[in-house]
């Protein structure tokens, strides 16, 4: 198993009250999976994704990555784990506006301290997502769909253990959303890249090979498809 939440609880303070985002959740993801955390707003799917992505720490329980508990790591060490082992795709693309598509992808390698043969790897990643003609365009010169493709290339280029995508099609129209999903699915099937999404979009859920349903901070379903 690449990553696993073991009896994880996550509470957020809200004034004098505590909001429980996850209540004793245990769920794991194997290599090569194309999994969706699904559920309505407030179900805890983004929180679960943040924990697996080492962006946040649990209030209790374990977050295992390659069998090691990363919840207890110091900030710097956690940053290093994110830089080398996890790729992120965000709903709002979140490209750095002053960098070109190639430089945005290159940034992920540089922050990971991965300096080997960078230029060629960056180009290949962008070619893989169909952006061979847009290497030197800045985000403002690209469409939403193209920006999300750059974000996918950025997540892929360092060959992470898992790519975490938080509602990656939410800001795209249905045509672009489907194309992006198709691209990710293709990468999963062809190269064995592990994807973990959060979504409440039925179209995204229909493409997943595994759907973990969350509600009110609990796992209420775990459906695997052929």
């Amino acid at each position, binding site marked *: 198993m690449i990553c696993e939440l073991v009896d994880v609880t996550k509470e957020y303070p809200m004034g004098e009250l505590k909001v429980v985002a996850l209540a004793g959740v245990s769920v794991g993801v194997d290599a090569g999976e194309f999994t969706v955390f699904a559920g309505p707003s407030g179900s805890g799917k983004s929180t679960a994704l943040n924990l697996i992505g080492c962006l946040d720490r649990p209030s209790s329980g374990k977050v295992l990555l390659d069998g090691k508990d990363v919840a207890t790591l110091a900030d710097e060490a956690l940053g290093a784990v994110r830089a080398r082992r996890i790729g*992120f795709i965000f709903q709002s693309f979140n490209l750095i506006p002053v*960098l070109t598509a190639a430089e945005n992808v290159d940034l992920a390698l540089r922050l990971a301290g991965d300096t080997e043969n960078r230029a060629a790897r960056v180009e290949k990643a962008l070619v893989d997502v169909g952006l061979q003609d847009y290497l030197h365009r800045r985000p403002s010169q690209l469409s939403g769909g193209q920006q999300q493709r750059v974000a996918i290339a950025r997540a892929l280029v360092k060959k992470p253990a898992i790519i975490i995508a938080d509602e990656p099609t939410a800001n795209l129209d249905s045509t672009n959303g489907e194309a992006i999903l198709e691209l990710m699915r293709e990468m999963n099937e062809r190269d064995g890249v592990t994807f973990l999404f959060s979504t409440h979009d039925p179209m995204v859920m229909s493409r997943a090979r595994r759907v973990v349903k969350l509600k009110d901070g609990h796992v209420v379903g775990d459906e695997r498809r052929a």
Partner: protein
Amino acid sequence: MGLLVSLAIRNLGRNRRRTLLTALTVALGTALLTMALAMLNGIFDSTIERGAGMVGHVRVVNPEYARREQLMPLSDNLPDPAPLVAAIQGQPHVLGVFPHIAMGVTAARDDQEIGEIFALLHGAPAAYYTDVLHLDKQLAAGTMPSTDKEALFGIALLEELGAKVGDKVVLLGQTQDGSPGRARLEVVGAVDLGNRMQNRQVWASLAKVQYVADLDVGATELLVQVDDYQEARAIAADLRQLPALQSLDVHAWDERAPFDAAGALIGTIRGIAASLIVFITGLGVLNTMFMSVLERTGEIGVMRAFGLRRWQTVGLFFVEAIAIAAIGGLAGVALGSPVVLFLHRVGIPLGEGASKLPAALPINQTIYPVLTPQILLTGFTLGLTMALVGGLLPAWRAAGIEPVEAMRHRR
């Protein structure tokens, strides 16, 4: 590091108007600072240096004279200064040694009764008046004296006396034993030192004042001129080691009143002025850098998610601040320098008040700012400091951004 520099430089261009505004703030602060420092330098150079020369870069006196010097006690004199002059002359850094007597007198035109017009009478070699005080260049009328019967008079004193060049003036003082001493001198030159208190003095020959004070060949002090007045303390310390001077009081200008306090005062004023300007400009930079951090919270979060370390985040904003400061600092120096050079040419009038300061601390009514490479460097360095002061807090704030918080902010 290359990544941070490249990103920082590009970030400067994403909101050009704000970058220019911040650089302008630094530029104005630097220009203001350059002008303030040049002005203080002008005061220091034109006034303190001249004052230091007047009182001797290094002074040698009888220790008893030093103890009671406010009374100018003629009895505590150096009765035979010639061997002392010979011992000091030829020492490293020494340009000249001048026996000097200063004494209080009352003055009157020779056709008037001695009244209550007081003046300070100096007796020194002619070379002291020309080479150190440059009185020959400050003559409002007449010429330099050529005999013991002639003297230079300050224009304020002449005005009070109702005298002019060519008139004779009687000076009445006390000899070293308290007996009356008298001199009748012809006014051959009227001197304007730009300061009313200084313009109430008389400069006569050493022999004439020795006669009035009944000092034979003696003097009350030896004024030593050196090649660098700012090194006078070290030179005074060396001179104290000379056997001929070991029983005497040997001190540099800035070890004696009023300059001992003035040096520290100018240093303090310079420090306060610089700190205030740095602080105020720093606030301007702080404001715009904070806006920049707030706008880029989501972006910083993304980069943190991709592994940007805290120190790298601080570095990113610091490099931006330094780049802005470098541009602003250079522009500020370029902006301030011509103004200073112009003011150096025309001078800055300080008004009548300056002329009422005591003659011992002569402030000219007009000061001339002096620009030096050191001031330009200080201005530029403090320009950098302004940006760093202003950039520090925002950079710290940016480094504290947690990726997960930034993600929420982005939504």
